[in-house]
């Protein structure tokens, strides 16, 4: 026996923006209640592994190497969060039908993207903090925690997550996995993120200046470690990639069959 129906056509009022947005965030948090702490733990382990593990490759670690390893830890952690882990989570959500289901709910596509960016960004913070702490303990290095350095980390995180989302939304799962692996291996081994750019050919370095990964590490070194000059060009590249990632994610979600 149906006792009550909670609204009728005549009294229907669409929910307000904040309520909808918090609803999307809440749903995502509940869905990932076990994954989020695991994700943070993996980030923490990754940070410690880079600080202590990569140092083993070097015969001696001077001040410059210490800065590169420390900033590289944070940068690679951010890349791992956005371009690998967040991308895989969205890809799984796509396969599970969550993405298609969300498309039928009264939330804008932008709200879905921003909500997910916030969630995975927050989940990445423990790893970033632990990376900083590990660097301080291991290399006795000083961190310049300021509004600028925090803003740079937030922008970098958002950019990488948005790149990851756009890969996941647009590409089939197997291709997306391959690309995220290439980004991660490239970031760990071949990009001048954990070592100075002078060690790679000029042409390759010029190419890296247009990709978001090296400018991100430059910005983190310039603000959190103050080991180089802050570059607006780097900021422009990172912001541009963030906008490209957002635009591609938005167009993928807005696309109609």
């Amino acid at each position, binding site marked *: 026996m*149906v006792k009550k129906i909670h609204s009728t056509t005549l009294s229907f009022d*669409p929910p307000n923006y904040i309520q909808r947005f918090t609803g999307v965030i809440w*749903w995502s948090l509940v869905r990932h209640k*076990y994954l989020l702490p695991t994700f943070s733990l993996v980030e923490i382990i990754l940070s410690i592994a880079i600080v202590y593990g990569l140092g083993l490759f070097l015969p001696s670690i001077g001040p410059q190497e210490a800065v590169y390893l420390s900033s590289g830890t944070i940068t690679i952690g951010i890349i791992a969060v956005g371009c690998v882990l967040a991308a895989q989570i969205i890809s799984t959500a796509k396969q599970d*039908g969550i993405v298609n289901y969300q498309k039928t709910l009264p939330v804008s596509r932008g709200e879905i993207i921003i909500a997910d960016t916030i969630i995975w960004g927050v989940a990445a913070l423990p790893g970033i903090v632990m990376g900083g702490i590990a660097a301080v303990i291991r290399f006795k290095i000083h961190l310049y925690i300021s509004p600028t350095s925090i803003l740079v980390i937030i922008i970098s995180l958002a950019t990488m997550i948005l790149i990851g989302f756009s890969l996941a939304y647009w590409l089939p799962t197997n291709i997306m996995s391959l690309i995220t692996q290439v980004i991660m291996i490239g970031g760990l081994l071949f990009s001048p993120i954990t070592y100075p750019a002078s060690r790679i050919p000029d042409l390759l370095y010029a190419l890296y200046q247009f990709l978001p990964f090296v400018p991100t590490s430059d910005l983190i070194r310039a603000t959190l470690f103050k080991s180089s000059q802050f570059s607006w060009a780097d900021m422009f590249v990172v912001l541009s990639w963030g906008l490209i990632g957002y635009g591609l994610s938005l167009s993928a979600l807005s696309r109609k069959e």
Partner: protein
Amino acid sequence: MVTSLSTYSISKNYKHGRINANKNITVDFSPGEITALTGHNGAGKTTLLKQIMGVVKPDSGSITYRGISFIRESNKARELIAMMPQFHAPLVGVTLRQAIEAVGKIRGISHLEMNESIDQIAHDLKIEKWLNIPGQKLSGGLQRLTSFAMTVVAPPPILLFDEPTNDVDPVRRIIVWEYLRKLANNDHIIVVVTHNLFEVERYADRYILLNEGKVTQDEHTSILRKELLSSSLLSITSNKPLDEAKIPDNLNTNIKDGALEYSIHLTNDQIPKAIEWLLQGIKSNKITHYSLSPFPLDMLYRGLTDG
């Protein structure tokens, strides 16, 4: 202001026009009415729902409600429509309660009303005892009922359901249809895609039959019921071939080759003579089994489609 949902000349093709999912579909859906959308697999039912919902864009035509074009303003469509998908709503990692609550929050149920709303729906659908079970551990039927509950929590004016009673047990199927009736009584527009013709006949107000992307039938189920009662089907099994010349007057006879099975479609006036002939057949031990019933819906349906 007209409050019906109108689709006008909707066409949708896939694979560069090789597949015509919908062809010039013009139908109105009215508040207070349960409309069943039936047809074979691939007839274009789900495509039509998705176009109304705004997730599939028609190649031509219009979809309007209260002067709003759902094709141009798909954000409005999402506010005014809730759709239960053909496959289960995503429930991995969330309990039944959390799944309903998530959609309730997004659709604007206040914190104070939330628990009451969820408990009420769970009570109505008789799924209370599974409220705190994770979705992936629920049976297919319970997952579908959860998906149904997610659709009807804070119901907007238009509700679209894609096969809502599939996998659901017979008792709760009736509950689902009763719930739909209550929603219709509250002036919601209800559109249900289903293959279950008996449920259509019994619970829907109107049915639209799609065949190869086109509307081939659109009428009230009261007419359908009358049509079904206006003729009968006499099914006979014999132990040897019957003399076809002696079969009484009928609308149509279908003989299954080799199986000695006869399906005789009769008008109500033709029934007495047919029974006389049937009794003779039983006496002479030629007829071993028979049944007489109102003309079945599935045979009528087959006659209306290419199936």
